[in-house]
């Protein structure tokens, strides 16, 4: 293999990935332009820079309150789904359950059903139980669609699991409980956390289920944005979007620093 073809392959690899990143970030660039553009509609190229959309966003109580609510709900959903999903994945792979395969497909099904039906069905059940859209109902609805993600990623990690580490620990005298907590759990942590990131994002950005489960004065940000947009489609929603991105990214970065996501990629 000549040095030239080596470089060509490398160049192709990086170019390809660069193009993919550009594809992923292009709409965000557009949203940023929209958030700063003085025109009241999305237009390209931009005609100027203005901060009035951000000002409008921060001045709007509805936006701020709902942003805060969305963040809190997302954090709770993150934790709940990591616990429930991680445990479930372990049970399915290690528990020797009969029908584990069918169970796995079953746990995936919330993702296959249009969320509007899930939301409506949950709403109906809450109404029949005489509960008028409690906040925990919203959390439950989000967790329902978040758990499959954690399940998926944890299962994927478990599939490539090198059980010799556990064997080694057992041979060295560790009790099954100790092996579980000090070897197994840390090793599946990457999968659980990757799923947790999904869970956070999915909850933060969740729309159709929230639509049915939010009480008045308890709306999440996507719902507020959508209602705003049906009536007034202007730069304020782009500003809202940019703020959400920055906030949510900060949360993810925080997770990264504290838990060390980089470490999860390697053993």
């Amino acid at each position, binding site marked *: 293999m000549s040095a030239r073809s080596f470089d060509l*392959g490398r160049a192709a690899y990086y170019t390809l990935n660069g193009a993919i990143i550009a594809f992923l970030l292009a*709409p965000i660039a557009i949203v940023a332009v929209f958030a700063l553009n003085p025109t009241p509609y999305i237009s390209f190229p931009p005609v100027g820079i203005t901060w009035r959309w951000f000002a409008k966003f921060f001045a709007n109580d509805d936006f701020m309150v709902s942003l805060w609510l969305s963040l809190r709900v997302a954090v709770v959903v993150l934790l709940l789904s990591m616990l429930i999903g991680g445990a479930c994945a372990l049970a399915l792979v290690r528990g020797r359950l009969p029908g584990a395969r069918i169970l796995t497909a079953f746990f995936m099904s919330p993702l*296959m*059903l249009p969320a509007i039906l899930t939301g409506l069905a949950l709403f109906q059940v809450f109404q029949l139980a005489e509960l008028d859209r409690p906040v925990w109902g919203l959390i439950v609805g989000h967790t329902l669609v978040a758990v*499959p993600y954690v399940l998926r990623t944890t299962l994927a990690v478990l599939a490539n699991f090198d059980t010799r580490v556990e064997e080694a620990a057992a041979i060295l005298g560790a009790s099954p409980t100790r092996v579980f907590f000090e070897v197994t759990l840390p090793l599946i942590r*990457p999968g659980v956390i990757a799923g947790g990131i999904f869970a956070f994002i999915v909850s*933060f950005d969740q729309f159709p289920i929230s639509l049915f489960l939010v009480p008045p004065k308890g709306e999440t940000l996507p719902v507020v944005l959508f209602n705003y947009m049906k009536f007034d489609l202007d730069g304020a929603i782009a500003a809202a979007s940019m703020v959400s991105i920055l906030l949510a990214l900060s949360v993810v970065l925080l997770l990264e620093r504290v838990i060390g996501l980089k470490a999860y990629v390697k053993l």
Partner: protein
Amino acid sequence: MASLADTIPGTLPGPRPARPSVSPIAWLVGPALLLFVVFFVLPFGTMAVLSVLSGNPVQNPNVHVTPRHYARFLGDDLYHDALWSTLRIGIITTCAALLIGYPLAHWMARMKSRLGHALLLMAVIAPMLTGIVVRTFAWMTILQDRGVINTTLIGLGLIEKPLPLMYNELGTVVALVHIYVPFMVLTLTGVIGRIDERLEQAARNLGASRLRAFREVTLPLSLPGILAGSLLVFALSISAYVTPFLMGGTNVLTLPMLIYQQVSSSFNLGFAGALGVILLAVSLVVVIAYNHVLARFSGQEGLT
């Protein structure tokens, strides 16, 4: 791989039990099962029941069982088309997301620098955080007749009339792929990251080209991730309706969009429920079949 699970209950590697019994770990499925039974099976069950009734028993005590919602679906090829559109868009989106997501996942998994990894992670996650509605409008800005792509191409003299990139299946797929590539990348990157690089190295040392080492070592080992990622994206894209709605005009009618129409403007919960049941049933069949086929190919068992 499943072998150790048998011996963990005992502290010493003694004789294996004749028939492996359900391990105590199985109880960990409890919380998930509880959550799902109460908040998924129950609500969805009521919806499925509604789909065979002539009305809503909560509102109207005089209801009877009727297959007319299902008959309606079977009887009109508009609805069959909607189902095929849904599946077709799902498959195309999944393949595209896989092709686009894999290189990125590979790069991210092999990235050595922590900063680089963090930056890539942010770049991958940021699209997911834009918010479904705003993101769709951003794509409209890019794809519409007077959007970024068309104005640039026309400005450069490469085309005369704007390309129809929106209000059709192409625009919908592009927008969906954009949303789901991050899911694919994040699912794959963990799995690829766990593949010992030395295996690839060994193959290259034995004379294989980079490409061959990838094809015969990395790729097969990342199959569980590919499986998990594509199932996830497929499931999501066949249930998506906000994006196709805002991107496709009436050119694209998928089953989820039909469900949305039935719920929000025809107020026909029975028919919507029937469509939901049909969508779920078909998707489960496809998913299980996919599982079997891929499991057969990769020799993997125990990962649905």
